[in-house]
């Protein structure tokens, strides 16, 4: 009983509303600021941000400025007279439109082909097989090579007289074709080689996604009587959507900037007719023709096109809390 009285007293003390808590203003806000996680972590992300920011965003800003000048040839650009004339010139330049058309074809066909071939590879490897790891290593191998290297191999593959591709078509009494010289064939030939190099990449992305699907779902689909093909089409592939989206973003952005391979296959800035894309056109206008301002305008256009892909992607990733 005594304890209870004591208890009631404590409870009353505990629950007393306190009114003496208004000392917040006296605290030093400076000390709080100095100790804040923001400032303490700044030495870690600050320097990389500055270095990367200057080279990426600083350069893009500068590039935009350059695209408004009429800089060409040697010397320094004149930044006093700025205008959109280079963008007008682009619109009126038929070779830009041809490059745009080729870029779109490359982008669409290359991306779809990589997604499809990668899916086939991933499904073939997504099971218990001997040497599964070795097969994966082989299929991904081209992706580890430089475009300059693979371009040499494909020049040899596409060689008109002794190339393996023409020999293959020869078996069926077709050809020989001038794969890298014929304007009707060249873009397809380039895309084929790039798919060879990139399909291993999509395969790896798919395999990672397939692995995260619980085994129980495969079993459930089996028990439900679905065959292998139906199981993949109805149960598994729909769950690969996030993987398909992120792979598509990477592939599309690659297609927008593909330059190395074309430079190396054609030994210079001028791809054979029928395979000029915006990325090669930009490099040629600048580093071959010294039309710096015009080239910058094409470069900035490529940036805007990339942004049109990146921005929605990052936004949805952010909304889903994946960043």
């Amino acid at each position, binding site marked *: 009983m005594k304890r209870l009285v004591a208890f009631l007293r404590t409870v009353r003390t505990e629950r007393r509303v306190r009114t003496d808590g208004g000392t917040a203003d006296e605290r030093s806000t400076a000390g709080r600021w100095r100790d804040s996680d923001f400032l303490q972590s700044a030495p870690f992300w600050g320097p990389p941000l500055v270095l990367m920011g200057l080279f990426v965003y600083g*350069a893009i800003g500068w590039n935009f400025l350059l695209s408004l000048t009429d800089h060409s040839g040697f010397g320094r650009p004149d930044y006093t007279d700025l205008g959109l004339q280079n963008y007008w010139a682009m619109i009126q330049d038929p070779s830009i439109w041809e490059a745009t058309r080729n870029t779109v074809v490359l982008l669409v066909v290359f991306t779809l082909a990589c997604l499809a071939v990668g899916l086939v590879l991933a499904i073939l490897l997504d099971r218990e097989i001997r040497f599964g790891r070795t097969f994966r290593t082989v299929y991904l191998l081209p992706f580890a090579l430089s475009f300059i290297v693979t371009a040499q191999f494909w020049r040899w593959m596409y060689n008109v007289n002794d190339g393996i591709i023409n020999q293959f078509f020869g078996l069926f009494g077709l050809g020989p074709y001038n794969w890298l010289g014929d304007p009707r064939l060249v873009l397809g030939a380039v895309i084929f080689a790039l798919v060879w190099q990139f399909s291993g990449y999509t395969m790896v992305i798919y395999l990672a996604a397939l692995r995260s699907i619980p085994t129980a779902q495969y079993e459930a689909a089996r028990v439900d009587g679905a065959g292998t093909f139906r199981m993949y089409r109805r149960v598994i592939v729909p769950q690969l959507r996030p993987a398909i989206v992120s792979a598509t973003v990477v592939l599309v952005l690659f297609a927008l900037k593909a330059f190395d391979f074309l430079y190396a296959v054609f030994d210079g800035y001028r791809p054979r007719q029928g395979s000029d894309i915006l990325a090669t056109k930009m490099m040629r206008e600048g580093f071959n023709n010294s039309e710096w301002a015009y080239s910058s305008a094409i470069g900035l256009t490529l940036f805007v096109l990339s942004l049109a892909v990146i921005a929605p992607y990052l936004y949805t990733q952010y909304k889903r809390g994946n960043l």
Partner: protein
Amino acid sequence: MTDETVSAGRTVADERLSDRFDLTRVGLYAALVGLTIFYLIPVQSGFVTSIKTSEALINTQPFAPPGPDGATVEKWAFAFDALSRGLVNSLVFTVPATILCAVLGSMAAYGLTLVDWRGQVAVFVLFIAGIFIPYQSVVIPLTQFWSQYAMLDHRLGLVLSSHQATLLELIITHTAYGIPICTMLFRSQYKTMSWEMIEAARLDGASVSRIYRRIVLPLSIPMFAVVFIFQFTQIWNEFLFSLTLIGSVNDPAASTTLILSGLGEALEGVDYPLRMAGALITALPTLIVYLLFADKFAEGVRV
């Protein structure tokens, strides 16, 4: 790989399928082997071609190895001679740039992931977007910056020769553009680290930088391996910066990819065996790294 996870799914195999089972299996392996040939033949053909004499080149199939008297290492020797300078240069800028972007990427990822502050996702978005930007939209200001404003060869003329200055430019450039992907790779690991562990270290009295050095860094070693391997191949294989910052195949700072792009150019056409030998020599460092650490490379690709 996925083999283990999925194997259980196959044990439910329908009875009626069992007689067809072997046939499916054979078909599967045939497809896999066929694809292996498809993915390897450009490399294989490149290799056999590189050791052929001019006569053997004309007389043998492009994928068939040359006979004993049709084989030669002459092209390899010549290619190695031409590329050796480039191999050294590539190594000189690739290794420091790889290490620098890994370290800076890890630091940035730590500051943006394991220290909690408002607005860090916005800063991280800047990093991620940096992964995807086309180099075409920065390359002209970049060359102008190095050649007309920074002018390292001029300013550091007392300590660095002109070709060393070019290599330094390449190191800095590759580091700057490599930071975004490295940051993302490290962040993907740091996001899975136990937040309670970081808090425990804070309560143990460790400062933000001590936590990085004593807790996060030791735990990042596996990811450093992934980043090193991935970034090494990326920078080694890179061409656009070499082309624009170095400028000429004859420059003493020329990288191996740059020299390869113009190897053995002559009026009478391309010397294919020489090109193939050069391509293989250029690819060799990345091939070795890739074949030794295929799993880590795949991990770097995947994230």
